[in-house]
């Protein structure tokens, strides 16, 4: 009897499944320089360039098509600051009236004395925040030259004095938080820790050591799974 072929793991492929043919532009791992097809009728999104009427990948990652926009979701990213982002920064240096903050971006941020955590006298910056300290702050503005200014004036913005810091790639935050914040909520509940997730991929985990370890292991697992595309002989 002839009919529809039964979908078995060996007959299923990337191109087709039991539901019929898949969109061939979905979920493909691509590498820099790879041709992604005709650009006509498509828009180049993140990680994609148009060269001579063809779409070209500029990053290693998974290709996605949403509507007419083709994007490459990279397997590794660098944080790019945007105004309003909550970030965790480390003090890298200071002058008499400015702190230099490493927020994990390609360019350091500055925290002017006027936006600091407390009233500071000129020349007294190190008494308030010293080199090596970590802070929870917010990106105030990003200039055209990519230089950014952060502020500590705001609710909950403070110097981090307890717990532990860890980080994941910024593009994995969506996966870490989960739909409607479910994954993060479960993680907080399970570890009994207070977890603050900053947009630059850094996390502040505060609680008992056992809980902190639990969270860190989970983060390690998440990063490992996301990068699981191995090598070749």
């Amino acid at each position: 009897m002839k009919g529809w072929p039964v979908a078995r793991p060996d007959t299923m492929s990337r191109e087709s499944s039991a539901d019929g043919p898949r969109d061939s532009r979905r979920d493909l791992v691509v590498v820099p320089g790879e041709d992604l097809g005709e650009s006509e009728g498509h828009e180049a999104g993140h990680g994609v360039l148009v060269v001579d009427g063809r779409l070209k990948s500029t990053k290693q990652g998974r290709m996605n098509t949403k509507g007419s926009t083709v994007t490459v979701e990279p397997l590794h990213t660098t944080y790019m600051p945007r105004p309003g982002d909550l970030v965790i920064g480390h003090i890298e240096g200071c002058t008499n009236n400015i702190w230099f903050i490493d927020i994990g971006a390609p360019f350091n941020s500055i925290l002017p004395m006027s936006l600091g955590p407390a009233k500071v006298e000129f020349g007294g910056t190190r008494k308030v925040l010293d080199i090596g300290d970590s802070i929870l702050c917010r990106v105030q503005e990003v200039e055209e030259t990519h230089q950014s200014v952060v502020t500590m004036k705001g609710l909950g913005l403070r110097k981090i004095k307890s717990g532990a810091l860890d980080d994941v790639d910024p593009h994995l935050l969506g996966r870490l938080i989960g739909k409607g914040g479910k994954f993060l909520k479960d993680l907080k509940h399970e570890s009994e820790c207070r977890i603050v997730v900053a947009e630059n991929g850094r996390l502040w985990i505060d609680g008992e050591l056992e809980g902190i370890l639990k969270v860190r292991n989970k983060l390690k697992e998440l990063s490992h799974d996301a990068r699981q595309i191995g090598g070749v002989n």
Partner: protein
Amino acid sequence: MGGYGDVQMIDENGLRMDGRKPGDVRPITIETGVVPVADGSCRMIWGTNEVIVAVYGPMEAHPRKIQRQDRAVLDVAYNMAPFSTTDRIRPGFNRRSREISKVTADALESVVLLELYPRSKIRIGIEIVSAEAGTRCVGLTAASVALADAGIPMTDLVVSVASGKINDVVVCDLNKEEDNYGEADLPMGVLPNTGELVFLQMDGDLSPDEFKQAWDYNMDAAMEVHKLMVEALKGGGN
């Protein structure tokens, strides 16, 4: 590289000392993510060459005098481990490693979208663990895989291969003896998707016909190596 006419490196059947035909490339293994703390990394084993490359960044460029207001800078450091050859190599930079670091940076600058990260720096460390011949080619190829692994935006990967001349025969991918006693060496860096050339050096003499043959060998080998690089980066993800 004056040529040693009395050293027979290719037999009457056209087979080389290691059993390869003139156009054959040595076996290659590529692995990514081998340095967990780095943003991107690659281990490439090419014959008996072994290279580990780690990429960090983009990060703030220090010292400030190296910053470019309109783009990032590539800080490439090629280094041969003291134990990488039979003769111990004195640790630290030397004239050769500076030259190779510079030509590698120049070749990679043509593919990395540096203008996206003004005033920053991308640090690339190339460590030669075991050296046979053609380490600059292996270093450059591995560096482009590591950059892709680090998520640095690039227009293409760079593949580098060297061909040369031994006993008046043009051969691809020279090994140590062929490199030492051969008559010429032509390393090239190629963009496999466009066929553009980003790196070319030549040591020794080649006639126009021999140059053409070496060029063709390099181009063919580059396409072969590119397939392996893509496979390593995709890692069966497709």
